[in-house]
């Protein structure tokens, strides 16, 4: 069991109902963690993985990146700056 922090941005905060949360997880990869979070939520709809980009410890990350103890893992919807 690893303790990590999950951060959400933009619409994901509304869809999943939190901004930042500490998690106890056994997920091996970032993708597994995302599926775990989505499966625990009541929300359907636009939570498809392909529209989301993960970041780990303030760096863009791959979905297959391993989850390590103490990681700060963020999920980002498409950018909409400008």
């Amino acid at each position, binding site marked *: 069991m690893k303790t990590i922090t999950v*951060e959400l*941005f*933009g*619409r994901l905060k509304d869809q999943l109902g939190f901004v930042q949360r500490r998690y106890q997880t056994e997920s091996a990869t970032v993708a597994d963690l995302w599926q775990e979070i989505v499966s625990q939520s009541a929300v359907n709809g636009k939570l498809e993985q392909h529209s989301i*980009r993960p970041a780990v410890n*303030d760096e863009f990350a791959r979905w297959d990146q391993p989850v390590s103890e103490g990681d700060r893992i963020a999920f980002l919807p498409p*950018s909409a*700056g*400008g």
Partner: protein
Amino acid sequence: MFELSEQAIDIAGLRHRLQDPRAGGFVSFEGWVRDHNQGKTVIALAYEAYPALARREGAKIIDEAKQRFDILHAVCVHRVGQLAIGDMAVWVGVSAAHRDAAFAACRYILDEVKSRVPIWKNESWSDGQSGWVE
């Protein structure tokens, strides 16, 4: 140079970073908050950023522009927080010896910032609703 700003963007202060006796052309873009979007009347909006990532990705885009185009200086600043109609949301300024490179680099920076820098927009509409716009 790429920055996030919680205050109104100070163009005068930024322009002098771009001045250079070798420069013959200076192109700037300002994104203003407009009163309509996707068929709705907008009354205000808020930008949220992932600051550490946004600054790093923004700096990377500026570097790319300097490698791809024959320019002298390039600066981009993006507002975060609450904005009103007419407020400046983003400013891009590029100086170069010649105008072609200045136009191309300004456009490149703007397009890349919009698509790659992790910033999100929450609009407030005239019907009392608000929502994230992507």
